């Protein structure tokens, strides 16, 4: 056996020497994959060398359709132990040498641009019409076999042998094989169909072929170039290349083109690439109208969910914004309330001390019970100021005014009356506290203080439609409306009313002052308050 191989090899070598003399350009070397370089006929055109199919990392494909003679050389870096290397050469499917070691004596140093390599020739071959395959590996890493294919034939077009359709029904998965006419296949997708399977003919260079699909109408690629799968189809104990294409790849009914082309060094593809390309038209019909009720329900639900989510997100956004706005309003309100409380507390020192003086007078006159009575009133007034409550009931406001006026009566002998409308629920209607007191104080101070017992103050709480009207009238000497300097109490009250109006926007407080020689009347209308 050994002898046979030896003889055979020497025959080839002698033959190749003859071939070499037939014009191989040894000055020009092409990368041929792995550690191999090659030289070809000096006049050879279209040398597609060392293509690496993306899913075949250790395979190098050299397509040499117009080359007659080929020299293959192996190059080792100096640090590599060449004794570990073994190589096998196949011509078509027949082994020429198998697991042969490198002949050390044949290794020569070769100067390459950057470093010096050890090199030897693996032989010179007539390649036309043949396929030469070189397998090389180191016994240190026997799994890493570098495979260089020198392809001296015309790469054949791929053939689609079958197209099958997979449907999933209640009974299980069901394949139906579709008849393939020469260039076109009609496919009808019903709701049960899942995918189609394209099956290619088996060849030694399946790894070279890629399948893609484009929409013929829009020229849009709907399936990018994809390598084949194995494992699903076996014929004659061989795995047959196939690809499953899901139904959803086809968005619409229409014509699609399946394109199968070999991968030949993609940065400089052959100009006549079309001769290698297989094209097949799929005429797809999607039976959209035949969606089952269940599908409709599912899609309906999905659509609802999507819209719901969008609406929900919008709502949340709007609500968040609204809450933000409300919080802002709330803050503004708090600021106004702070201002209000400071205004409220400014109202009072005037009469508090006068009241104390009144009580002092009673004590000095030994009117103990009266002193007690006025002291209680004084305490109640003071508490009202200190408590700084935002809202009091009309009844509380009435008591406060009563207390206040009775204390002032101690000093001035006027008469007063507080009238309340029967249809007002005094206990439960609330108004901002100390609302009328400054006006009443004004009436006492500027109105009737000088009139003694003839002075009269009338206070009224009344209802006008939904408005609450609070009135303070006196029969004093009045003041001119255009008078520049208003009393401190009056200007503070106006300030306070405008602050209140910024809180109670929908129920504005309206102040009307009428003053003449015959007296002054103040109407404070709380619009829509009731």
């Amino acid at each position, binding site marked *: 056996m050994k002898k046979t191989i030896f003889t055979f090899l020497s025959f080839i070598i002698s033959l190749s020497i003859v071939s070499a003399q037939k014009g191989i350009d040894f000055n020009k070397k092409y990368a041929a994959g792995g550690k191999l370089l090659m030289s070809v006929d000096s006049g050879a055109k279209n040398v597609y060398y060392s293509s690496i199919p993306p899913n075949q990392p250790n395979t190098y494909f050299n397509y040499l359709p117009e080359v007659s003679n080929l020299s293959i050389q192996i190059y080792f870096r100096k640090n590599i132990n060449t004794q570990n290397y073994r190589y096998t050469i196949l011509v078509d499917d027949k082994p020429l040498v198998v697991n042969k070691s490198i002949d050390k004596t044949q290794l020569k140093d070769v100067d390459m641009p950057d470093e010096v390599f050890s090199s030897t020739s693996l032989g010179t071959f007539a390649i036309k019409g043949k396929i030469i395959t070189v397998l090389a590996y180191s016994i240190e890493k026997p799994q890493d076999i570098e495979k260089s294919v020198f392809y001296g034939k015309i790469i054949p077009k791929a053939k689609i042998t079958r197209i099958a359709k997979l449907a999933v029904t209640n009974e299980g998965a069901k394949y139906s094989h579709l008849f393939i006419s020469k260039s076109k296949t009609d496919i009808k997708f019903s709701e049960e169909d899942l995918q189609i399977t394209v099956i290619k003919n088996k060849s030694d260079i399946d790894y070279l072929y890629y399948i893609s699909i484009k929409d013929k109408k829009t020229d849009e690629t709907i399936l990018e170039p994809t390598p084949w799968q194995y494992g699903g189809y076996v014929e004659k104990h061989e795995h047959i290349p196939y690809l499953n294409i899901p139904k959803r790849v086809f968005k619409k009914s229409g014509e699609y083109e399946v394109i199968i082309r070999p991968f030949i060094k993609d940065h400089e593809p052959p100009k006549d690439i079309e001769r290698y390309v297989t094209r097949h038209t799929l005429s797809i019909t999607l039976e959209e109208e035949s969606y089952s009720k269940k599908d409709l329900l599912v899609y309906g639900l999905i659509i609802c969910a999507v819209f719901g989510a969008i609406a929900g997100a919008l709502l949340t956004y709007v609500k968040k914004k609204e809450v933000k706005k409300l919080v802002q309003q709330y803050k503004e309100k708090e600021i106004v309330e702070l201002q209000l409380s400071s205004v409220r507390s400014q109202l009072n020192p005037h009469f508090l001390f006068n009241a104390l003086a009144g009580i002092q007078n009673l004590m000095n006159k030994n009117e103990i019970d009266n002193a007690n009575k006025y002291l209680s009133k004084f305490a109640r007034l003071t508490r009202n100021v200190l408590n700084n409550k935002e809202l009091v009931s009309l009844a509380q406001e009435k008591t406060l005014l009563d207390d206040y006026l009775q204390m002032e009566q101690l000093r001035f002998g006027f008469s007063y009356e507080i009238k309340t409308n029967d249809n007002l629920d005094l*206990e439960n209607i609330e108004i901002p506290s100390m609302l009328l007191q400054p006006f009443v104080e004004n009436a006492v101070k500027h109105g009737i203080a000088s009139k003694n017992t003839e002075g009269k103050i009338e206070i009224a709480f009344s209802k006008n439609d939904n408005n609450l009207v609070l009135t303070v009238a006196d029969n004093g000497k009045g003041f001119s409306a255009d008078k520049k300097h208003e009393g401190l109490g009056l200007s503070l009250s106006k300030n306070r009313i405008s602050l209140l109006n910024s809180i109670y926007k*929908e129920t504005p407080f309206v102040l009307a002052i009428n003053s003449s020689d015959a007296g002054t009347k103040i109407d404070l209308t709380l619009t829509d308050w009731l």
Partner: protein
Amino acid sequence: MKAILIDDEFSNLENLRTLLQKHCPQVNIVATAKNVTDAVNAIEKHLPDLIFLDIQMGEQTGFDVLNLLPKRNFEVIFVTAYDQYGIQAVKFAALDYLLKPVDIDELKTAVSKVEQKLVTLSQNSQLDFLLQQIKNPQPAISKIALPMQSEIRYIALSEIIRCEADNTYTFFFLANNEKLLVSKSLKEYADLLKPNGFLRTHQSHLVNPKFVKSWLKEDGGVLLLTSGDKIPISKPNKEVVKLALQQL
């Protein structure tokens, strides 16, 4: 009626004694006390019917006096200068209190109320309730004492759906469909319950927001409660109610 006066200021004790002697002669002052220890001793010795109890007593409080007593079979009228500390709990327990300086009319009213109550006196449940509230200061008070004609009812705030004014009376509508009439104004209960989240939607209505189902736009704003009641929202309260419901 045996009474003990408790206050840490001498002049207050003397003043209250003078007013009681003059205006409430039926009150027999058996002792006065100026601190917690003296007060506890005096109460255990004299077993009074009534004590006048100052809330703020230096570092200690009138509540400490009550806490130290194993048996509290007497009535209490709290007396306080300024109604802040503890007064909220006193109001929730529906107990009586006077503000200093004491108003003679209010004093007379309070004493006569005690006289009416004295008939059936064993352990004072309102005091137990009060001390419970003081002891466990929860973020929000969970129960309120409602004085009824013949009893005190302790109602969980979460059981109150809403309150409605009837002049100086207030109706309480409870989750168990009970309707209680209490002789205090809605305004008073509004002041007590608003800090606990209750909403004053209208001059006659106070609502527990827990029972609000929805805001109906009819008649310018109506709250629909889970009980089916429709409660009007008056204009001045709209903003506040809206804000409160939004923040829930």
